[in-house]
């Protein structure tokens, strides 16, 4: 029990600044404090520090502009694309024949599916990474909490809705893999991990390399263009937005109205922020960031 409490003290104190963490650990060692008391002390300090941070506008802005809206969109998109990709892959896996590639129509279909899955995966990774970057860069000291909230929204945003229809009474392994495992795989590996990766980069004060960043944002913009209708449909078929088939009465046809066309812009605003962070530092801010005042300003975020 004591070892667990000390482990928790160690873990929680990581939420403090490096300097303060060392001072606090030193104080606890000097006083010979018991593990339970040390844990209470550290929890109290961490809560007070976090409370001060949340008095700032940045974490609230990030919750309102990134965590809830984009987290929810990524939740629907990752589920929808996870399921549709699983359908495509399982069908081709089952019926694959290389002779398909000799037939222009089949070949086109294979390419279409590959482009759709590839661009969907790229878009999920890119959107998530840029969101993580914004969370880390705009409010470094609350990043662990905002990333956690984002992950919760991604995993539970679709709770109570389904795109799988009525589940069978005794679901087969294939059903389980397609409708349960793959969407979670998409959410974990294409959303949450890139999000944490982006948050790690955003938290570091170092600037991003110009060339790779420009290329990455360009690729993400291209992928966003390719999947924009798929993103809107993930909300329609996910039950978040009422389906409107347009004049012809058929869904997923050319005349479907697109009242949610702006969602692509919403998903791209973190990428725009990433581009903004590429701006060269002014001489004043460069000297400040290398000095003690820069460190203090960085601490205050």
């Amino acid at each position, binding site marked *: 029990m004591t070892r667990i409490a000390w482990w928790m003290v160690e873990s929680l104190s990581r939420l403090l600044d490096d300097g303060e963490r060392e*001072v606090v650990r030193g*104080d606890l060692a000097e006083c010979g404090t018991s593990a339970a008391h040390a844990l209470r002390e*550290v929890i*109290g300090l961490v809560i007070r520090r976090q409370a001060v941070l949340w008095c700032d506008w940045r974490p609230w802005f990030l919750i309102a502009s990134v965590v809830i809206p984009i987290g929810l969109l990524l939740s629907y998109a990752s589920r929808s694309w996870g399921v549709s990709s699983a359908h495509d892959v399982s069908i081709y896996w089952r019926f694959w024949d290389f002779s398909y590639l000799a037939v222009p129509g089949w070949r086109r279909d294979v390419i279409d599916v590959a482009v759709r899955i590839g661009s969907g995966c790229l878009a999920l990774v890119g959107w998530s990474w840029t969101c993580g970057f914004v969370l880390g860069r705009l409010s470094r000291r609350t990043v662990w909490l905002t990333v956690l909230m984002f992950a919760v929204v991604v995993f539970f945003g679709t709770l109570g809705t389904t795109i799988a229809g009525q589940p069978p009474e005794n679901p087969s392994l294939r059903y389980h893999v397609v409708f349960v495992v793959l969407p979670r795989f998409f959410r974990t590996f294409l959303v949450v991990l890139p999000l944490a990766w982006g948050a790690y980069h955003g938290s570091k004060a170092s600037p991003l390399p110009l060339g790779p960043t420009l290329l990455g944002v360009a690729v993400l913009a291209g992928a966003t263009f390719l999947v924009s209708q798929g993103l809107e449909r993930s909300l329609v078929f996910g039950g978040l937005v009422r389906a409107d088939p347009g004049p012809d009465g058929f869904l997923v046809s050319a005349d479907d109205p697109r009242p949610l066309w702006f969602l692509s812009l919403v998903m791209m605003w973190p990428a725009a922020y990433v581009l903004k962070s590429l701006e060269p530092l002014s001489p004043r801010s460069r000297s400040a960031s290398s000095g003690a005042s820069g460190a203090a300003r960085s601490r205050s975020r």
Partner: protein
Amino acid sequence: MQLGEFEYLMLTAVARLGEGAYGVAIRQEIQDATGRPCSLGALYTTIDRLEQKGLVKTSMGDPTPQRGGRPKRMVRITPKGTQAATTFYNAVMRASRGVAWSATK
């Protein structure tokens, strides 16, 4: 400069300890003076607030074996801090004039 009660207690403890004012010692002084426990959270957030107001200055002390090789956060009162504490003390003394608290119990 407006001071709170706890801020005044801390400034007084820092002034009394002089060169030896750091986290554990300040906390002990406050606990001895008030008879109430003082948490690390209250201690360090108040030190930060006082530093932002320019009433104290802090610096990192040398690591000691007693602290597992970890440094102390040394605290020193500034002239502005001395003035603020003096103002607070004078206000309390003026307000207390003619009142005998020990007799009212």
